[in-house]
């Protein structure tokens, strides 16, 4: 039981990471009707910025803050230069144009930071495990990720539900033309939303960096997972993204923890090792396909859509 609890924590942590990516993606999708494959590039940029600033400032916190700011700015600049002309085009154009951007950013990073990639070392006080339940030890940094992301989610909820900008965002998601007609500076709103999405993605990238590796193309696989999350949750719905992210995170982790042994029960050891993780990844896409077939608006659709 304790073991299951521990694996659930692991699943939560992955889910929280996915939520950070998916929240921005779903906002951009819901409000600007924009499929953005370059979202994973912002995840990557965030990690690279943070790695650089941590190195320069020699401070974990300052490095992350500067990295976050840099990703926010990069996102807004990207929106003005390359994304804005794509609004209103069809989705194939989005896929293609942002696929081009994805290729571009991979090469740009190679040019600036070199092909080897970076790592971010945690401060030594983070390198410990804490006892979360009697007998259950959990790495401190992973708890920090879960808690920090929950805080961000709460903040996002407050921004969207309680502020004027949030009201416009919600209005924009349900009726774009109307918001524009009301005299709101829709261009500025879009740039802000895109910047916010970029910052969230960058935050995800840098939070993950110390427990993985800062490298070219790091955002590509997780980007597809984030798309799965927003489809399952319902496009444009932050609440949906939150729930779906946790579902996907849990399926992936629990599946990886238990499926290999299940397969081994029927087949060989080695077959289980290959088939187990493959099966749990497949389950995620199966869930997405089922949602698309039976409930295309997602499990938790955005209100008013």
């Amino acid at each position, binding site marked *: 039981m304790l*073991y299951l609890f*521990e*694996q659930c924590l*692991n699943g939560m*942590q*992955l889910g929280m990471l996915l939520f950070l990516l998916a929240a921005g993606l779903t906002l951009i999708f819901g409000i600007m009707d924009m499929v953005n494959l370059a979202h994973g590039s912002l995840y990557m940029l965030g990690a690279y910025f943070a790695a650089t600033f941590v190195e320069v400032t020699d401070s974990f916190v300052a490095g992350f803050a500067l990295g976050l700011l840099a990703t926010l700015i990069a996102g807004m600049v990207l929106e003005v230069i390359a994304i804005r002309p794509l609004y209103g085009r069809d989705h194939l154009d989005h896929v293609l144009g942002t696929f081009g951007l994805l290729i571009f950013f991979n090469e740009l990073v*190679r040019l600036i930071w070199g*092909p*080897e*990639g970076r*790592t971010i*070392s*945690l401060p030594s006080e*983070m*390198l*410990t*495990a804490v006892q979360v339940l009697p007998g259950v*030890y959990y*790495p*401190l*940094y*992973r708890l920090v990720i879960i808690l920090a992301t929950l805080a961000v989610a709460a903040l996002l909820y407050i921004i969207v539900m309680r502020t004027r900008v949030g009201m416009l965002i919600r209005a924009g998601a349900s009726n774009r033309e109307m918001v524009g007609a009301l005299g709101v500076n829709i261009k500025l709103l879009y740039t802000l939303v895109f910047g916010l999405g970029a910052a969230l993605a960058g935050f995800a990238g840098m939070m993950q960096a110390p*427990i*993985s*590796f800062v*490298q*070219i193309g790091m955002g590509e*696989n997780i980007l597809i997972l984030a798309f799965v999350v927003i489809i399952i949750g319902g496009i444009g719905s932050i609440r949906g993204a939150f729930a779906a992210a946790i579902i996907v995170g849990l399926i992936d*982790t629990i599946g*990886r*923890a238990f499926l*290999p042994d299940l397969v081994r029960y029927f087949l060989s*050891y*080695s077959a289980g*090792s*290959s088939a187990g*993780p493959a099966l749990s990844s497949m389950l995620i896409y199966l869930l997405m396909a089922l949602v698309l077939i039976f409930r295309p608006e997602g499990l938790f659709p955005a209100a008013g859509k």
Partner: protein
Amino acid sequence: MKRTLLATCAVLALATAPALAQQKTVKIGFISTFSGPVAAIGNDMRNSFELALDHHGRKLGGLPVEVIYEDDQVKPEVGVQKVQKLIESDKVDFIVGIIWSNVLLASLKPIIDSKTFTIITNAGASQLAGEMCSPYVFSTSWNNDQTPQAIGLYMNQKGVKSAFLIGPNYAAGKDMLEGVEATFKGKIVGRELTTWPTQVDFQAELSKARNAKPDAIFAFYPGGPGIQFITQYSQSGLKGQIPLYTAFTIDSLSLPRLKDQALGIPGAQQWVRDLPNEANKKYVADFRAKHKTDPSFYGSQTYDAVPLLDSVVTAVKGDLTNKNGMRDAARKADFKSVRGSFKFGPNHIPIQNFYLQEAVNEGGEFRMKTVATIVENDQDKHVQKCKMPN
């Protein structure tokens, strides 16, 4: 129309260029990884190869050398394309390098079909030692399971009764875990293979290891993922509870990053930077003078390829079409290896010693150190499966 014509002309022009190149040079195609979290390995191999060429006056058997470096990006399908390009377009005389067993397995067919003389300087897929052995393919490294076999023996010595094994799910990972199982006499209480090379988050597997309550954990994670594994092992608080044994996970490349996290974690290797022979002293000293750090075992194996090739080209007096002559010369292993002298088995895999090694703190610098010899003149167990065609 113009655009495509222009592009086509460019292709044609480039395609003809190599044909005009000078004839009397030794052309070497070098396949390794220069991008991503394992790029440090490729760079270390390249640095050692370049240093060895410098030591040989940048000549092999009296002929000037040209090296073309290609990056396999840790992807078998990319590696095989690069190998094909080196063979067909660059028309290299030798292929050297290859870190990854899966890249090697994908590339072996074009190498064998084209009879390109090849020195593998790391990848040790057991098929290469067994059924896929080939007259013109030699290895200066080992077969995958030899090193973990040595660690398995050491775990027996330490009285380990049960172990949890973990490694990446690719050709080498499977070989490595089988290697430990071959010699380790205790009980295997768990065996995990993780997605390679993309998975670097091992939390779910570490949780599983803790839950299995073994006496020891064995891990195989080369390059950047190895740094992540050791770090997460420390972070999870397992370090004080369950000791870790490794193969190819802690080396001179990861030590500067791991520092004291690496202390007290034993590993096995066929070469350590402090092996007391003249060739090795010169190699390590000159490498340190140039790169301010110790070379890794990857580098040492690659360094050895140069004197081996030199002996081969010398034996055929520069006639690189005399492949049987080169093969016979290579089989003698008549050169000063930095690991001390060794013999090739009939499958062209070295028969050599394996040492126990540990990281130590030498006045602030973390370095690898030989502790003991675990096995002497070890030959891989796949050699019977090799029917070497002559």
